[in-house]
């Protein structure tokens, strides 16, 4: 497991402005922070504070209006779209609030999917996906499709899918927002456990103080600015 003192993510004086009709909305206003490697990092703040915007920038699915975002020391601002796709496939894992599983695939096929995108041989991909399904506690539900799974099980699949490629960084945007409190805690426990197993850095956005209290590093955003918790 890498030492947590090395920053995996560096956000330097980042601004992000969205056009909204004839005016613009400043979602981030000069945010600067570092996220340690192997850490369990939480971004907290009220709705509209800029958490998701910051996660999108760190996850290389959006570009800052100004400032720099470095992941593993690399600034991807000028990268072409295909290079960003390959970077995301190899380095990042995503866990979404709405799970965003592929409905026509079974649980294990959803977990397997990112491996096949990386051209991992099918047999090996299936073996790793089954192992991951076991690891996230899917048990007998591996062959069921998302429509047949509970919210908690869907999020387990999403966690498995995010981790199966051994990414350095897992980005989870409000992963417990659609779950009841007990299931949410279970999911956060699972993330902790998987972090310990894989050494991946988890960056989670939440406005649940209980989840935030379980973080090793915590950043609070308000009106697009980093504030003291």
């Amino acid at each position, binding site marked *: 497991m890498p030492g947590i003192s090395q920053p995996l993510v560096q956000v330097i004086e980042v601004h992000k402005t969205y056009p909204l009709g004839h005016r613009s909305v400043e979602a981030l206003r000069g945010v600067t922070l570092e996220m340690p490697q192997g850490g369990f990092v939480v971004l907290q703040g009220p709705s509209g504070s800029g958490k998701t915007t910051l996660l999108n920038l760190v996850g290389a699915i959006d570009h800052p209006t100004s400032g720099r975002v470095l992941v593993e020391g690399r600034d991807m601002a000028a990268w072409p779209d295909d290079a960003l796709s390959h970077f995301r*496939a190899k380095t990042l894992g995503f866990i979404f609030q709405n799970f*965003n599983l592929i*409905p026509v695939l079974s649980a294990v096929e959803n977990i397997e*999917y990112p491996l096949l995108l990386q051209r991992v041989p099918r047999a090996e991909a299936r073996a790793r996906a089954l192992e991951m399904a076991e690891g996230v506690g899917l048990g007998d539900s591996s062959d069921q499709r998302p429509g047949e799974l509970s919210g908690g099980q869907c999020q387990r699949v999403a966690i498995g899918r995010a981790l199966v490629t051994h990414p350095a960084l897992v980005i989870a945007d409000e992963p417990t927002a659609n779950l009841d409190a007990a299931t949410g805690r279970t999911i956060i426990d699972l993330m902790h456990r998987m972090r310990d197993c894989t050494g991946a850095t988890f960056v989670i956005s939440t406005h649940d103080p209980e989840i935030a209290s379980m973080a090793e590093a915590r950043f609070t955003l308000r009106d697009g600015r980093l504030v003291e918790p």
Partner: protein
Amino acid sequence: MMFWELALRNVLRNKRRSLATVLAIALSCGGLMLFGGYVVWAHLASETHATTMTGHLQLFKEGYRLKGAGNPAAFAIENFEGIQRQLRGDEVIGPLLEMVTGQLLVQGMISSADRQTSTAFVGIGAVPEDLERLTQWNPHGLADVRDLAANAALFAAGPELASGDPDGISLGVGLARILDIRMQPHGAAEDRPTVELISQPPSGGMANMVSASVRKLSTRPLEELDNRLVFVPLPLASSLLFPGEEPRATSILILLKDLRSLPLVEARLAELVRDGKLALEWRNCWDLNPNNVRSVRMMDMFFLFAFCIISVVLVFTIYNTMMMSVMERVREIGAVRAMGLTRGDIIRMFTAEGLLLGFAGGVLGLLLAIGISGIINRAEILYIPPMVTMYAKLQILVTEAPAIMAASFAGCLLVALLGAFLPARRASRMQIVDALRM
């Protein structure tokens, strides 16, 4: 999860919509194949009909085609049997020949002494067996018009000419009406009406006359021909124009074993003419039957027009289906893009789904076309085609025309690709963050 398997599952995600799209493609594709099968039949029937009228090639004396109608006898080929032997013995042309025969165009007056009537006529002097062989020419195995009950009356009286009937001629029904000639049904040879054929010999002087008996009346395809055309045995026709001389012909008619060898034969004829071994000019069946060529070209244009219209409709149908699929899966597109799918991957994913719809529709359309064409071909649908005087059996040659099947099938895949591409491109260009917010 393999690429095509995922595409198939996505296609089956909304079964009703996919089924409707596949059916639309199948009906369009099947309809196109059926129409194509009809056009192919029209081509082959037209080619066969043209060949039975004129053979594949006709050789004439120079200038006959332009001026021969004024005095065909003046353009008669004296040694036509020698030329026939030359062609049969030619190392290039000989093996390609099915038949070579002479025909003599003759014109003059025809009269019935019994009925005291007369009128002008145009006669074709032909070798009876060769004429019969020509009319039976059917290289593509199309339904034989002689087998149709509707044509029974036409063929009941036997062939136009017969070698054992040296003075037996056949007239158009209109010409018989003009001459007030009536045939006895099942009448004996001695009961047949007699007519006199009178023609001016090319050398001038007194007109010649021969007597003939009418063995058959046939309806000709045009009123003008029906009122004037007479088939005459070649020796009788020749004796009318050249009494006491060797038979002559105004044209040497060539029937090839295979029409595809026509260019080769024409090239050889040109070579023989260039080398001074043949002093004739020729016309091929397409030059001699321009209306047939125009008719089938018109059918080709209809087919092309239908193909274009159907293609445009199908492109929009598939576009609509795929666009709905894209709009329903926006968040999923955002998610898989975040997971590392490139824009190209997204385009491939949706176009693959479109191709699967096109493939399924094409296969179903093919099966429909084969099934429906089988029913139509067995149903014995009869009609009288243009420029023909007998019933023909409608045939839809789907399986016999693999090129049409392949083109229609490929067309399905192509329009599916086109219809799916724009929605796929739109899906690939979505901003990931916007897609995830939907």
